[in-house]
């Protein structure tokens, strides 16, 4: 079991969360060329090692979070709120 330290709820089992995929992807503008959308939706770097990925705390606060995790060892290096504004507020409150 991986333990994920949800910034809103505290440390929980990974089975409370749903894996969202590569969290480093930035979606292009709606009117961007189709090639950019194909790249964002379908193409993955598929890193072996530390990657930023998104998870949703579906059985908890239902917030999306960004997790830096090693895909070989499953060690977690950092967790933060996916929403930048919320992440800043949480950081300021520490």
């Amino acid at each position: 079991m991986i333990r994920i330290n949800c910034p809103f709820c505290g440390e929980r089992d990974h089975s409370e969360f749903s894996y969202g995929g590569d969290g480093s992807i930035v979606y292009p503008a709606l009117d961007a060329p189709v090639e950019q959308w194909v790249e964002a939706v379908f193409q993955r770097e598929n890193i072996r090692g530390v990657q930023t990925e998104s998870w949703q705390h579906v059985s908890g606060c239902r917030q999306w979070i960004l997790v830096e995790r090693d895909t070989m060892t499953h060690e977690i290096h950092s967790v933060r709120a996916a929403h930048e504004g919320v992440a800043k507020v949480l950081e300021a409150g520490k």
Partner: protein
Amino acid sequence: MTRFSAWSVFRNGLSGQSGWTRQWRDPEPKKQYDIVIVGGGLHGLATAYYLAKNHGQKNIAVVEKGWLGGGNAGRNTTIVRSNYFLPGNREFYEHSLKLWEDLSHDLNYNVMFSQRSHISLLHSPAAIDGAARRYNTMRLTGTADAEIWDLDQLKQEVPHLNYGPDARFPIRGAAVQKRAGTARHDAVAWGYARAADALGVDILQNCEVTSTTRSGNEITSLTTSRGEIQAKKVGFAVAGNTSRLWQMAGFNTLPIESHKLQAFVSEPLKPLLDQVVVFGVGGAHFYISQSDKGGMVFGGDIDWYKSYAQRGNLPIVQDVAECAISILPCLGRVRLLRHWSGVMDMSMDGSPFICKTPLNNLYLNAGWNYGGFKASPASGWYFADLIANDRPHETIEHFNLDRFAQGVVLDERGAGPDPKLHG
């Protein structure tokens, strides 16, 4: 190589089993090959075999970072079937099943292919209608052994499933493919290796590719843990680590994520289950058969997050155990003997790639999700055809990397571009 026959078994029985020779050579790598296949799993070995057998290629090497049968070839539940729905997929998998039917004779090696039926349980009228649509399509397109069974017939054939009316998902019937079944996974790897070796293929174990050398639009050589190997053509067939190898070839991204799938085997039991039984409803996913040694071989979903680790997580162990008990309550006190995990190429639409690449002499075989075992004979057959002729056969022309940009995805499950959802 000694050819196996009833006579060779008899003669070696009389001579104290002393006449057997090793199954394949352990050659030193040559400086150069016409074709190098990276990956000594079932797909890579089958590719080398069909390149030599069907296309007369003489100078082939298979490079494998570990030992034969040590990757996903030895980490699966050995199910073979061809109950696919989409054009492209169904012809491909039916061809594969036909190759399986003759594989032991073709390889002169008993792969223990057992056509014991594949039974998908159905739990609602809508599921029966959906299965009828799929299985009727199969019948109309060349897979004549598709059947829908009602509850009475199913009870007669598989008497000890949980037919209780109080089950969370009561069983209503089943979709059945009778020519489907299981095979002995190690024997498939060994059989292909032995047959390919007999046709002159060099099988190089403990030979990990660490980088590639490119000149213009071609790969000229591979740097391996056993030295530099030059190649005129290169084929990648390395499930799980495809993306890493792709990046070694100088590319960046693929429509693939690596996920891990667990499988389980119980202690040996007396004969209990004559078929492959599949249970999939309401979020459950479970498949089970009994091996010739008596162990119950079963598995479920992938671990739900990306991973390159060849070890599984415990929540899935619990999920799979719950599924087992819900359809076969008689397994309640059976002990688990072993469980293992393999790293899968999960593709963005659940379908594979057998295709050319942006490099002139590099070919890709990847993205088998967790259905690669059944596909291995046809995968090797068509990949060999692609490499030898430098063009895709019409059966696999949709197994390309461009299909996402073109909007012609092969999404058998209709799950969308999320690799973890394709099973």
